[in-house]
C-alpha cells in the first residue's frame, strides 16, 4: 500500500495536532456545547468565552478520530482572539473549504493550518469528522449572540 495516499489526508501538521491538541480541556463557568457524530460515535465539546466582543478563551474536549481531534485543535488556534463576527466568517469559510468549494485567498490565509484540512474534501465520509468541532463552535457563538 502506498503511504503517499495516507499522507495526502493525514498531513504531518494534522498528526501533530491530534497527538498534542492545543486548548484541550474545560473552562469552569463557561457554557459547553456538545455535538456528536452518530456514525462514528465521536463526541466533541466546545467552550467559547467572549470578552469585549472577542474570543478571549476557547477550549475543546472529547473523543474522536485523528481528523476530528486535529480539526478541533487547529480551530482553537484560529479562532482565539477573533471577533465573534470574524470567527463566524472563518467557520463558514472552513465549512466551504472542506467540501471542496472555492474560498477567497484572504480566508485560506487566515485559516492558516486549518486550511490543510481542505484535503478532507477528497474523503467524503470524513468531512463530518473535520466539521464537528466547528459546528459546535458556531452553535456556541450563536447562543452567545442571542
Amino acid at each position: 500500500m502506498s503511504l503517499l495516499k495516507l499522507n495526502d489526508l493525514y498531513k504531518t501538521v494534522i498528526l501533530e495536532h491530534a497527538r498534542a491538541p492545543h486548548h484541550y480541556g474545560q473552562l469552569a463557568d463557561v457554557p459547553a456545547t456538545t455535538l456528536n457524530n452518530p456514525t462514528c460515535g465521536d463526541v466533541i465539546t466546545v467552550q467559547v468565552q467572549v470578552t469585549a466582543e472577542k474570543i478571549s478563551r476557547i477550549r475543546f474536549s472529547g473523543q474522536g478520530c485523528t481528523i476530528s481531534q486535529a480539526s478541533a485543535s487547529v480551530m482553537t488556534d484560529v479562532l482565539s482572539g477573533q471577533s465573534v463576527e470574524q470567527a463566524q466568517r472563518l467557520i463558514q469559510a472552513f465549512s466551504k473549504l472542506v467540501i471542496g468549494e472555492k474560498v477567497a485567498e484572504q480566508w485560506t490565509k487566515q485559516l492558516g493550518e486549518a486550511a490543510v484540512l481542505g484535503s478532507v474534501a477528497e474523503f467524503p465520509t470524513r468531512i463530518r469528522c473535520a466539521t464537528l468541532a466547528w459546528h459546535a463552535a458556531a452553535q456556541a457563538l450563536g447562543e452567545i449572540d442571542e
Partner: protein
Amino acid sequence: MNISERRADFPILNTQMNGEPLTYLDNAATTQKPQAVIDAISQYYLHDNANVHRGVYSLAARATDQYEAVRDQVAAFIHAPQRESVFFTRSTTDSLNWVAQTYGEQNLQAGDEIVVTALEHHSNLVPWQQLAQRKQAQLKVIQLTSTGELDWASAQQQITDRTKIVAVAHCSNVLGVTCPIQKLARLAHQHGAIIVVDGAQAVAHQPVNVQTLDADFYAFSGHKLLGPTGVGVLYGKLALLQTLTPAQFGGEMISNVTWEHTEFAPIPQRFEAGTPNISGVIGLGAALTYIQQLGFAAIQTQERQLTAQLLNGLLTFPDVTVYGPQQVAQHGPVVAFNVDGIHPHDVATGLDLAGVAVRAGHHCAQPLMQVLQVPTTVRASVQFYNSAADIARFLAALQAVKEFFQQ
C-alpha cells in the same frame, strides 16, 4: 469450491478501489451480487414486467408465477411447513417492526415483559423498546459472558412468566457469535412467550430450519444473502399469523371492500399491501438458487477457513483487541476489533486507501458498544467469495496503517 470461478461470478470483486484491487470485507453490511442475480432482474424487466396478482393477460401471469415461485423457494430454503407462512417485506427491519406493530400491539399489556439480548442490532431492539414504552411493558436484557456469548443464567433469570416476547439475533453482526435459538425457544415457550428471531446475519452462512429452531417469527433481508436491496422476508407460524390484523392496507390484500368495511384476502396476500418489490423478489429467487447450487457445505468450509485466517491473523498483532470469542471454533464470519491508540475511523480510512473495505462504527449496536466499553470498533466480515489473498491483503494493509499512525 473453485474460488476463482466463484469470484468471476461477482463482477465487482474484480474491480479496483483507490488504485488497488477491491478487497470487500464489509459483507455483514451487505453482500455483493452474482451476475445471475443482476441478470434475473434485468431479464424480468426486459421480458416479463407486469403487475402481479392483477392482470388476466399472459404477461401478468408470467410475472405472478415467477413472484409466487420465489415464495415456494423461500419456504423450502428455511424449511417452513407451508408457503403461506412466508411473506415479503422491505427488509429485516421492516419484518421485525411488523411483528412489533401487529403481534406486539395486539397482545401486549401493561406490566408484560419483552426480553432481548445485549448483542441486538438496533433493528431488533428499538422496535421493542418503543413498543414497551407505548404499552408500559418492561424491556429486559439477557447479558453476555466475557467472551460475548449469551449468558444462559441471565437468560433463565430474565425470561419469566410475565415475558410475552423474546427477541433475539440468530447470529451477532458484531461479535460473530451464534445464539442458541432452539434452547431459547424452549425456554420462551415454557413461559408462554413467543420467540422472534432476527436471522439477518444467519441465513447466508448456515442452513436454517425454522421448524427445528421452533421460531415463532423469523426475519431476514435479501441484500445480505446475495440478493437485491428492498426485499425482506418474514416467516411466521401460520396459527399466529391467522390471529393478526394486517399492519398495512390497500391494493390486492383485500377480498371485499365497501365504504364501511373491508374483508381481507387469505394469508399471505393479506400481509402484502400494494405492489410488492416484484423484481426484488425475483432477484432474491436467483440468489437462493445460486446458494443452493453451491450448497452450504462448500460455503461453510470456505468461510471457516477465511474466518480462521482473519481471526488468527488479527490475534498475532499484540496491540489489537478482538471482541467476542477468541477461538475460531466459536466464531462466525464477522470479527470486530480495535487497534490500540488508533481510532477505528482512521483504521478504516487507511485500509480503504489500500482498497480494503471494512466498517468502522457502532454497527447499529450502540448499547453493545457500551457493554464492550468502547465508543466504536472496526469490523471485518467475510463471505465465501472472499479469497485467502483478500485476508492477506487486509492483514498487510493493517500492518502498514499501524506503522503509519504509530510512526
